[in-house]
């Protein structure tokens, strides 16, 4: 099972995080769980690379962090999408679709 999982292409983790946060604000652990669930256990999201990516996105101003209380009444750092983050999500999603279509076309031709 584990062998069939594929590593995330570089740069796509940001896209997945932005997409996950588009619905609602989440803390890091919930984000990693959500990505695992949605990608039906095919994608292997390294938890170690999740937090550096979140901090990078926060620095870029695409997500905003605030401290809140989690379901089990613990202090947790919640991330939410900013307006420029929403725009970034649209741009990156469009770029990704374009890229995957183009790569698919090349593979079909050959």
């Amino acid at each position, binding site marked *: 099972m584990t062998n069939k999982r594929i590593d995330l292409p570089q*740069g796509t983790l940001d896209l997945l995080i932005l997409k996950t946060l588009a619905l609602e604000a989440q*803390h890091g652990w919930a984000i990693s769980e959500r990505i695992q669930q949605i990608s039906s256990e095919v994608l292997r999201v390294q938890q170690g690379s999740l*937090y550096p990516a979140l901090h990078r996105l926060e620095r870029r101003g695409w997500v905003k962090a605030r401290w809140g209380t989690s379901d089990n009444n613990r202090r947790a750092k919640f991330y939410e999408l900013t307006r420029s983050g929403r725009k*970034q999500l649209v*741009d990156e999603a469009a*770029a990704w679709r374009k890229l995957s279509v183009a790569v698919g076309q090349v593979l079909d031709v050959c």
Partner: protein
Amino acid sequence: MAQIVRGRRASAGRMLSDLLYRIRALFRRKTVEMELDDELRFHLEHQTEKHLRAGQFREEAMRRARIELGGLEQSKEECRQSWGIGLIESLVQDIGYALRVLVKSPGFTAAVALSLALGIGANTAIFSLIDAVMWRMLPVKDPAGLWVIDQGLTFQQYRTVRDNNQVAELAAYSAVRLNVSVDGNIEPTVDGQLVSGSYFSLLGVNPAIGRTISVDDDRVPNGHPVAMISYGIGNADSGKSYRFWAGRFRFRELRLRSSGSRLRSFSALRLAWPRIFSSR
């Protein structure tokens, strides 16, 4: 592997929030570190609980959670790298190291400081010279309107040009070495200029005392030679009799009553700082 191309159009607002983020990471380091620790521990706890619910023992659940995160300390280090302050931090560390090394070897430090001082001093000196010689405006009425027409004209040629031109005011000068006697005693020679009568009025230079050489002084060639002493000639003693001559020209004896005609802040149009101006 594919790299998604991101738009690089950074808005001013985003650049500001980026800057604020980095400043916070730099100057509220303790808080930021504590937050990082809290955040990652929160993650580990949740991940451990998840494994516990799956029926694992606590020890094993915690171990797996840590491994999945890639180690707590290593994760922290990777997060720090995405704060964008690594460059500044290593710079601060390097400066601190440099200072410690300099304090340890005072001899070397002194040599470095000395060579820097000499280098900067030499540059300053050369700049001052260039500034004075090439860039500073001449202390005359209209320096930008001043043109050197030609060098090597004879006085006769100058007069012909002057009398036949309607366009510009003209003045002529020529360097000369003057013999000097004070009260009959021969003094060392001084640099001087032979100047036309229009010289001082054209340059708009006024004497500190007395009068300048004027157009009236040069109506008759060698008619009545007069001389002016520049301010820089030093302690020209009053009451003494100065005589100047150069070749066959002998200038009228100059008796300094109070201190004679002298020019302040003006030497001449050349670098040789003539001390005496004479009518031709």
